[in-house]
């Protein structure tokens, strides 16, 4: 194989070669970044959440009648709902929540030790700690264990005091913190028994993912209290823990069960935790899909142009190929000649591709968060371009074997 001759032939068509090089290198760059985006979307969905995603169904609902402004009435309906849901076939347990894990925004507040100095600024991640209110089984229902101290009891329920005029200001509730939060608020000692601005810590729960978009340990920060929030303007949430494999069966009957207790409610959503997660990440996975589509199209364009490049090369060189054949080149020598031109191009493009890959990654990181490229992904993209180019070159290369050596003797 005469590499020098090949390079010379490519240099003679420098514009076309240059275009193809640019094109292939951009394809590599885009492909790598696509895979990065897709990977991180998949990773987010598949990373462990620390609670029983597979067995949970969530219901979001709003009362539609003014009668629910009476909190006693509202609470009695909620309790009836929970009792009726718990009695359903396949349901292990059910509880009400003021909000659900895996969300943006929500019910958040400062979390600090009661003796936190007034002139100090609270770290940003402790300024918006999610506050969860549920019944005694709230954490258990999620599948999250208490690792220190105790769980919440009926005696910790502040609902009655909260809705008794005048008493709201005097409440000092008992709360549970997640492990990471407890460490952040009380860095040098056990949090059990300590007083915070939100109440006294009686237990610490194992970490689980609550705010996936927060950075570092802040995604595990949460506080739990025993309280039935019953203001009819805001969405009420039920989480139902079902026996393995019964999600669909229970999910189908939930709306009717709830409405049979009292019909004046708007059931906004009934979905499995799985669906909830997919929905939460739909923007990420949507973007990844768009990029994936683009990469696929780019590979198609690569195939088209590799094909055309080789095809025109072969057409142009018909006579010389004929002469080569006449001088004793075998069919496979000629095929190899056509292929190696494509391979040299791919090689050049893969070098240029490093620059486009990094450049595009930097450009993308200006607008969205994206991980850095890795050598493995780069190698993968080069391989795909190599394979696509080779496949596309196959047909024109095959056609060269049909060129008869007789052509050589037909002078101009």
């Amino acid at each position, binding site marked *: 194989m005469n590499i020098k001759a090949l390079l010379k032939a490519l240099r003679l*068509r420098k*514009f*076309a070669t240059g*275009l*193809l090089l*640019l*094109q292939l290198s*951009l*394809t590599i*760059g*885009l492909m790598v*970044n696509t895979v990065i985006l897709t990977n991180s979307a998949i990773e987010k969905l598949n990373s462990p959440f620390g609670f029983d995603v597979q067995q949970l169904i969530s219901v979001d609902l*709003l*009362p*539609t*009648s*003014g*009668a629910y*402004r009476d909190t006693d009435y509202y609470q009695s309906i909620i309790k009836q709902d929970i009792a009726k849901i718990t009695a359903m076939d396949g349901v292990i347990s059910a509880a009400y929540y003021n909000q659900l894990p895996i969300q943006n*925004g929500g019910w958040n507040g400062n979390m600090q030790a009661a003796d936190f100095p007034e002139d100090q*600024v*609270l770290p*940003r991640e402790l*300024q918006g700690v999610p506050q969860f209110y549920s019944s005694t089984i709230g954490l258990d229902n999620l599948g999250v264990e208490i690792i220190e101290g105790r769980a919440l009891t009926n005696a910790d329920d502040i609902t009655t005091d909260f809705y008794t005029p005048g008493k*709201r*200001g005097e409440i000092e509730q008992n709360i549970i913190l997640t492990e990471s939060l407890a460490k952040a608020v009380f860095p040098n000692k056990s949090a059990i028994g300590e007083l915070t601005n939100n109440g006294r810590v009686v237990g610490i729960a194992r970490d689980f993912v609550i705010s996936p978009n927060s950075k570092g340990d802040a995604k595990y920060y949460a506080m739990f209290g025993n309280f039935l929030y019953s*203001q009819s*303007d*805001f969405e009420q949430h039920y989480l139902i823990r079902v026996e393995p494999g019964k999600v669909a069966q229970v999910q189908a009957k939930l709306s009717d069960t709830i409405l049979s207790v009292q*019909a*004046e409610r*708007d059931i906004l959503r009934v979905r499995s935790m799985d669906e909830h997660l997919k929905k939460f990440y*739909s*923007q990420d*996975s*949507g*973007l990844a*899909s*768009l*990029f994936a*589509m*683009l990469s696929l*199209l*780019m590979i*198609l*364009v690569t195939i*088209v*142009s590799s*094909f*055309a*490049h080789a095809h*025109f090369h072969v*057409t*142009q060189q018909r006579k010389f190929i004929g002469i080569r054949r006449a001088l004793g080149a075998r069919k496979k020598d000629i095929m190899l000649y056509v292929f190696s031109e494509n391979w040299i191009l791919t090689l050049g493009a893969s070098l240029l591709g490093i620059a486009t890959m990094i450049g*595009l990654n930097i*450009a*993308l990181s200006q*607008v*969205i968060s994206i991980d850095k490229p890795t050598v493995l992904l780069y190698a993968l993209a080069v391989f795909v371009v190599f394979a696509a180019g080779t496949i596309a070159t196959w047909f024109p290369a095959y056609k060269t074997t049909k060129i008869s050596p007789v052509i050589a003797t037909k002078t*101009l």
Partner: protein
Amino acid sequence: MEMFNYYLKLSYRNLIRNRLFFILMITTLAVGVGVFLANIAIIKSMSADPIPNKSDKIFNVSLNIWTGNNPRAELIEIMRYDDAMHILKNDIATHTMVHYQSQVYTRDIESKSLTRHQAVVRATTPGFFPLTEAPFAYGSAWQQDHAKQIVIGDSLNQQVFGGGNSVGKVLEIDGKPFEIVGVLKPWELKPLFYHVAYGQKFKATDDIYAPIETAMDNEWAINVRNSSTDRINSVSDNRGKNGYFIQAFVQLENQQQKNAMQEYIDNYSQHRQEQGEYLRDNDNRLLDVKQWLEHKEVVDERMLAFALASSLFLAVCIFNASSLLLARYHSARFETGLRRAVGARIKDVFYQGVVESMLIGLCCAVLTLIFGWLFLQISITLFPALQQTSDIDLTLILLGIGIALVTSFISMLYPLIRSCRTPLSTTLK
């Protein structure tokens, strides 16, 4: 003109003769332009001016009145009830409105059915209507601050009353009656500039417009952002307390008016500071609609990221088309040489190339529109949030055709120059 027809005929013949070649070339180019166009369609409607005739006269008012303890935090657009009332209390602006968003369930009080309809409420002041140019079909705004009167949007009017003049009819909300005093025509506002924060930017316009005092009296919940530094027991309890939930907009016709308003709000925060409130170093801010939308980053960053990628892809498609055409022209050198030998000027050869690129461009344009539509549908499927923001209008179609023509011409340019430059004596041997 005769030459034009001749070239058109030649180009057509050429396209038919090299069918496979041109199908590949035009399709790849059209895919590239199509993806690009779909992306532009999305970004264009995201960055549309919702109220073009006076977007430079409507200003968001962001006050430096947050009493939180973080000095680094950014200025936020929500304010307290008292701040909002102070802004309403001046005649500097042509129109002033403050609002918060709520949601209720409602039904026709006369109706036998107990079914209630979910309705998004804009708790606001009468200035809302002239400021946003909300189009009234019937009736008008309320006159009294605490009136149990409301204006309803067209879609709620259709849902509850089946349309028509519903002024004088009564809606029941939480068991209480509210009289309808105005009905709006169908009204589209994209983006919803008066409430672009917190995921509301591409929502439809509201169902119920109610006096802000009435909404608070009736404890209609603040259902988007509500922050407080005091313990606040109910919606009406916000009066006089540090609960932040109201947004304010003013219409200012000229620089004098704007200066006066700036001075007015600066005096206000200074006054609050003198009264002992802890304020950060931020400035009070008046941003017009365009600046405001930009500040709130209405254009989805994901779409910008994709725009970057799709323009690279377009470049790839142009490179591809160009290198294909180069090969094409290379093989057509003989014919070009012959034409030159029998007396065609370089101009003639170039003209012929331009006609051909226009024909290619037109084929490409047709395909582009098809692909563009297709990719838009795909984008919407992948991003349901885009549903509201993807309009195909005439300008977009023209834009698509324009881009297709231009890219075809660009792809053709270098190959054409090359073919014009080929020395004559070598090609005919």
